């Protein structure tokens, strides 16, 4: 017996096949067929249609069991083939997609007649073919789509129902909904259907979790996070270990004392359970803390902690569960466990950094192919996760590092549109992933292998809360007193942090991953985990908001706050930036400062397009500028300015306004940031006067009074918005890239802009110096007004050329 894959060719359009074509097919078929049949019994053959355009042909593949020995009794007509006796048909399969129905008549086989395979191919024309049902092929995909749609729908409904969204956290609603769906599925038995998507750990860890982590990593990129990174790591690493090391043994001793009945739980199982139950869930925490709108520092403490805590928990979990099921654990194995923990996290960090850097390098070359940018960024981020997991490193740590790298470097290489695309894509996907996780969580609640043990469940919950409070308070004490924190984490915030230890999807997923063959109490653990999740999400989660109000935790101040506060914030930020510069104390510690310099000089040069030459050109411009100070050029400019001031009083109004117009175009950078002007040695009163003068848009203090009276202060437009925009547009903020602005994480100006304006500023200063020095070389002792006007005009022109990078700075320098 041998298998034979036989393909029949039919002309589809004609019921009566064109004789010539058909006979050729048949001929070839028969020839091939016979050749093969004559060969040895082991031969397997397969005919592949290479003869005609496929759309004209209906291909049916049949696997036949032919009797041994040569046989030439095949008889093929256009829709019927006669096979030799005792041939059985294993299977038939339609290869061509255009066929709707094929029936193979097997009935005659038993009668010992020559086996007739009737392939009743229905030759259907297009118009009848319009409607067909292909659930088998597409049902899975359709259900996935439908599921996503439901998830989005739930979100819409939640946010439209006002009472719901003000009182109950979103995660609770989703879990409830999932429970309802789960109950329906459970009792209708739909759960067994192969089409219903199932929740399993690969789906969670490789599909749903990465977008959430990536989105979180992008939003971690904030000054508040980096300011608090030491404290966050303290909470995430030490805090988690404290939790594990206290919950595990506590449960173990409780079990030894027989509190949980006769079942004794081994220590290692207790530790595994303690590990998974220590996973504070960023999804649940974020969902609630974002709604509550606490102040930024607290938000990042909780957010950073919950995110990094997962990475710690998952690596710990892998380490500890590797030790499970062993009879006796030796010290070397524990050391190996600790080592593997370090390697897992270290490997995660390096993988993330490597792929983050790779994505920056790749995007350096995408200036002409902007469309691929989002793809590159997102796919490389995903690969950093999967790649780290490949080596058993921590995917979460890797993805966080990669995301932060991308936010720091890659962002400057990609276009604004790509940036928006990536931002919203990750946001959308991660929010849908959130919804799906909670829905699934609710669905999985309804199952029949729960093992309820009241003492165990309640004690677990109790321990979780107590030890969380303990670790938060003790670690905050350490952080407040031994770290150089500017901002003391106060009691209310500590309380809220401890309170915010919500358990969620990670704990749940690790729990259902437990291997029942190794861990005797797996079912008990799953039940307890689900209870803790529900308790924390429902009870703690929904009471967080009232507690925030009760404790009067500082709320994140939004833009509806007073105008003056906003102005003052900017003033203070700008001012403090200068102060820190004077104190030589830009960043919290020496190494951070070293790193910042290294980052600016080398890393950015490599990873950001054009980073190198731009940085260099700015530096040379500055060097030139400050050297210029020595040979008196700066003084010239000062003189030029005093002349302007003096002549202002005498010149006629038209000339004056002309000057002002010219100045106000180009010299706004010059005006407020002008360092040369600062070197004047002036008495206080003249200093004050100079301030007025250096705002060229007004000749003196008088016009203000005119301005004030007729102007209605109230315009319909949002003054505060205008102001915020103006701040962000001002040269200094462009230069600092909004680093000193804490408010607008959302629309931080790109560093590219900052560089451009820094460069431009340097250029314009040099230009002004050049013109000033030239005009004095020509002779006349007081600088004539027209040359200053020329300088100002040149500055205005410079601004127009802002986009035109072709103006080579070096040429400019030579001219100077």
């Amino acid at each position, binding site marked *: 017996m041998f298998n034979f894959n036989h393909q029949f060719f039919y002309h589809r359009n004609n019921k009566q096949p064109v004789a010539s074509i058909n006979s050729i097919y048949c001929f070839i078929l028969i020839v091939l067929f016979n050749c093969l049949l004559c060969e040895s019994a082991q031969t397997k053959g397969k005919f592949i249609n290479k003869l005609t355009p496929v759309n004209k042909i209906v291909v049916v593949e049949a696997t036949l069991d032919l009797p041994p020995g040569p046989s030439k009794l095949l008889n093929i007509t256009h829709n019927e083939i006669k096979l030799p006796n005792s041939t059985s048909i294993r299977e038939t399969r339609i290869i061509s997609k255009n066929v709707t129905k094929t029936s193979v008549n097997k009935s005659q086989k038993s009668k010992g007649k020559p086996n007739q395979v009737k392939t009743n191919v229905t030759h259907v024309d297009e118009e009848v073919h319009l409607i067909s049902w292909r659930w088998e092929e597409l049902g899975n995909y359709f259900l996935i789509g439908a599921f996503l749609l439901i998830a989005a729908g739930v979100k819409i409904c939640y946010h439209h129902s006002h009472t719901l969204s003000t009182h109950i956290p979103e995660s609770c609603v989703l879990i409830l909904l999932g429970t309802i769906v789960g109950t329906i599925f459970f009792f209708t038995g739909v759960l067994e259907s192969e089409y219903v998507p199932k929740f399993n750990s690969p789906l969670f860890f490789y599909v749903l979790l990465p977008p959430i982590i990536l989105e979180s990593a992008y939003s971690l990129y904030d000054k508040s996070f980096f300011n608090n990174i030491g404290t966050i790591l303290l909470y995430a690493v030490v805090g988690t270990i404290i939790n594990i090391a206290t919950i595990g043994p506590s449960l173990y001793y409780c079990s030894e004392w027989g509190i949980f009945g006769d079942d004794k739980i081994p220590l290692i199982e207790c530790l595994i359970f303690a590990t998974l139950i220590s996973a504070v869930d960023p999804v649940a925490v974020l969902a609630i803390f974002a709604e509550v709108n606490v102040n930024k520092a607290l938000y990042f403490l909780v957010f950073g902690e919950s995110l990094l805590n997962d990475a710690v928990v998952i690596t710990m979990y892998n380490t500890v569960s590797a030790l499970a099921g062993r009879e006796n654990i030796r010290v070397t194995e524990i050391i190996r466990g600790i080592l593997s923990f370090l390697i897992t996290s270290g490997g995660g960090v390096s993988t993330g950094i490597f792929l983050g850097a790779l994505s920056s390098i790749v995007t350096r070359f995408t200036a002409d192919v902007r469309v691929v940018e989002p793809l590159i960024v997102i796919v490389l981020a995903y690969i950093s996760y999967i790649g780290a997991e490949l080596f058993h490193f921590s995917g979460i740590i890797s993805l966080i590092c990669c995301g932060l790298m991308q936010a720091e470097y890659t962002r400057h290489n990609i276009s604004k549109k790509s940036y928006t695309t990536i931002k919203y894509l990750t946001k959308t996907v991660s929010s849908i992933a959130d919804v799906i996780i909670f829905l699934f969580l609710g669905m999985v609640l309804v199952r029949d292998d729960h093992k309820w043990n009241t003492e165990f469940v309640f004690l677990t919950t109790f321990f979780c809360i107590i030890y969380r409070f303990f670790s938060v308070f003790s670690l905050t004490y350490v952080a407040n007193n031994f770290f150089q924190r500017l901002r003391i984490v106060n009691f209310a915030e500590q309380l809220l942090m401890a309170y915010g230890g919500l358990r969620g999807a990670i704990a749940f997923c690790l729990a259902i991953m437990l291997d029942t063959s190794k861990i005797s109490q797996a079912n008990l653990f799953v039940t307890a985990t689900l209870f803790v999740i529900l308790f924390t999400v429902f009870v703690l989660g929904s009471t967080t908001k009232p507690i925030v109000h009760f404790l009067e935790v500082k709320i994140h101040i939004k833009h509806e706050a007073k105008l*003056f506060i906003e102005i003052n914030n900017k003033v203070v930020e700008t001012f403090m930036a200068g102060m820190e510069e004077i104190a030589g104390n830009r960043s919290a510690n020496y190494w951070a400062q070293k790193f910042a310099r290294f980052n600016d000089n080398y890393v950015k040069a490599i990873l950001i397009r054009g980073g190198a030459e731009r940085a260099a050109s700015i530096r040379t411009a500055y060097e030139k500028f400050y050297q210029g100070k020595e040979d008196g050029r700066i003084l010239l400019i000062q003189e030029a300015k005093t002349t302007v001031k003096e002549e202002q009083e005498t010149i006629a109004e038209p000339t004056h306004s002309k000057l002002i117009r010219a100045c106000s175009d180009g010299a706004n950078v010059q005006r407020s940031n002008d360092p040369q002007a600062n070197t004047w040695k002036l008495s206080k009163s003249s200093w004050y006067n100079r301030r007025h003068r250096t705002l060229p848009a007004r000749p003196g203090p008088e016009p*203000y009074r005119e301005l004030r009276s007729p102007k209605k*202060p109230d315009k319909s437009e949002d003054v505060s918005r205008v102001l915020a925009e103006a701040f962000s547009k001002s040269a200094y903020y462009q230069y600092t890239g909004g680093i000193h602005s804490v408010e607008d994480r959302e629309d931080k100006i790109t560093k590219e802009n900052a560089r451009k304006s820094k460069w431009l500023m340097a250029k314009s200063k040099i230009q002004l110096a050049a013109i000033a020095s030239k005009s004095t070389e020509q002779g006349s002792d007081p600088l004539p007004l027209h040359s200053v006007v020329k300088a100002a005009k040149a500055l205005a022109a410079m601004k127009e050329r802002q986009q035109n990078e072709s103006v080579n700075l070096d040429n400019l320098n030579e001219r100077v």
Partner: protein
Amino acid sequence: MGSRSSLMLQDEEIAIIQEETGFTPNQIERLYSRFASLDKGDNGTLSRDDFLRIPELAINPLGDRIVQAFFGDEERINFRHFMRVLSTFRPVKKNRDNKLNNRREKLRFAFKLYDLDENEKITREELLEILHMMVGANISNEQLASIADRTIMEADKDGDQCISFEEFCNILERTDVEEKMSIRFLH
């Protein structure tokens, strides 16, 4: 630089400064080396020029206000003066009350940024000027004027069209300005 400068700084001087400002000896030495590195003329005092040589400060829109805040009426400042000004920006710590770096002192410093003529009032003109410095030409004069009007209106309680120091403190009452106005000095 560090070793040389610490040699030049006498122990009793450190003690005096420590007493006065609350900085630790380490911080004082570190800041002294910064002071020395700013002091291009090596004459133990800093001039306005020395400050403005710092590139970041030169482009800071409030650069000359900062310098003014440091110098006041003086032409040159010595290290003790330098430290006194900086000590305003030490973080506020509970239990360790210091007269130089409490919230009110910080606010006083911020207030002086606006109040140029030192008449204890921020006038509309002074506010407009600060705004001008901050935003450059990105906003029209009319808009700026309307912003200034609004701001004064918000803060002004006694109706004199100016913001006094008390009004200033009141309006910033619920902000974390003391955190913002703190520098993490290295130990």
